[in-house]
């Protein structure tokens, strides 16, 4: 799923300064699972904002709403019933949702309430970690199911680098060294010979480096 962090409260307050009637918009998908932009978080931010603005003598009228998905036109279209007299939308969806709502409703600003960070997993309750970078050419079959592109700080294809210590990355001691994990798994499965292969230079054109990406399924088009 897509992982995000809520923006600092001060930054949100600053963005909303010119507005009195806001729509605080959440999403029921990824940002709900990673506890940043679901119904609960929308309600919490709404109370925080209302209290802060009341204290400042600048009361704010907040309408809360959570879409099933912010990245799907069907749900985004339904927002038309909700927007009404709102001056601004503060979106707690990921960067995709924020933009997609903004593309549909051009006469109302859609501001980001979160920083979208990575594609990851819930490692344990309250802990999310990165697993994929969307490079467009998966090599997990060659690296024992562990992605060096997203999980090695240097995206090495022939790691580990000299900074791997005690199983951890030199950049952050709490981050496991992806190449230690890969090598351990090669060993577990008696496949260390695979490690000896020189991994070829990657073609990054399938990644962001090839420009913004698009996928079309002609058979699904209506």
């Amino acid at each position: 799923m897509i992982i995000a962090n809520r923006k600092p409260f001060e930054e949100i307050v600053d963005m909303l300064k010119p507005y009195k009637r806001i729509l605080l918009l959440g999403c029921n998908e990824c940002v709900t699972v990673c506890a940043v932009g679901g119904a609960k978080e929308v309600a919490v931010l709404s109370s925080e904002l209302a209290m802060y603005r009341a204290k400042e003598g600048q009361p704010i009228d907040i309408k809360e709403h959570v879409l099933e998905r912010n990245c799907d036109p069907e749900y985004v279209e339904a927002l038309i019933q909700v927007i009404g007299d709102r001056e601004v939308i503060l979106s707690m969806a990921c960067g995709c949702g924020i933009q997609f709502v903004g593309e549909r409703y051009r006469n109302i600003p859609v501001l980001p309430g979160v920083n979208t960070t990575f594609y990851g997993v819930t490692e344990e309750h309250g802990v999310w970690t990165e697993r994929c970078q969307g490079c467009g050419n998966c090599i997990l079959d060659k690296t024992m199911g562990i992605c060096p592109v997203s999980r090695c700080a240097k995206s090495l294809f022939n790691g580990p680098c000299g900074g791997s210590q005690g199983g951890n990355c030199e950049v952050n001691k709490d981050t496991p060294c992806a190449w230690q994990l890969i090598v351990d798994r090669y060993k577990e499965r008696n496949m260390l010979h695979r490690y000896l292969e020189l991994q070829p230079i990657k073609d990054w054109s399938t990644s962001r480096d090839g420009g913004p990406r698009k996928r079309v399924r002609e058979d699904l088009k209506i």
Partner: protein
Amino acid sequence: MKRESNLKKVLSAGHFAVTAECGPPKGADEGPIKKKGGMLKGYVDSVNVTDNQTGVVRLSSLAACVILKEEGIDPVLQMVTRDRNRIALQSDILGASALGIRNILCLSGDHQSFGNQKGAKGVFDIDSIQLIHTVKTMRDEGKIIGGEALTAPPQLFIGAAENPFADPFSYRVLRLGKKIRAGAEFIQTQCIYDIPRFKEWIGMVRDEGMDQKVYILGGITPLKSAKMAEYMNGHVAGITIPEGIIDRMKKVPPKDQREEGIKIAIETIEALKEMKGIHGVHIMAIEWEEIVPQIVEKANLYPRPSL
């Protein structure tokens, strides 16, 4: 123009090689490089110039190599994949060769988060092993990545680094093997303080017959103080200093700690000279280049062969 690497000549003639490291200044002045070059000239076979080491912006390695070359020194160009993509790397490889640089050390580079440009975008388009292979292909096949032919191939003696003290320990030798297969001809190791662990590593290298395929230069960094030893042990990625060495430095009064550091360096060189599979030393006296001649002399490695 000097046509061949002095380092390669020294190593292939079977001499115990001595190289040193020179960190370029944080400014546009050639003075410090000439000064460091002047101190090292005649005491080492080549001088290795760091490429924005630890992610700190400094005068470029290529420019410093050219300045050293003009001073009559055989430079080793360090090149990291952190800051350049394959277009820039290959272009600089060609440029370096055209400028008469004859040695290259291929590295991935310290992560940018360690340096003074923490917000920098790390490039890492290719990794160090792929860079080694790229230089080899350019030199031996006259081709760039993708197969296009060069009008003239670069002439470079290809080096790589290896850290025998990083983890996973038992796989370090396998990775060295990958570097050799990719095209590495000489290896510089991380600074050695833990001689038993280094011996274990070089034993594994010999068991694989790798010491017959590549020249290995043991890394030496003289300690300036007990504080430096503790700092390096705790904060520098990939470096481990045994408690015994730190204690030895601590037992000496601060004013004599430099002398003790030099003694440890010389003892380490002596130990390396006796180790089968070691073909030389690489002295990385960080901002202390002036000490290198003394270490070389005391380790009975002076004068250097003139080939």
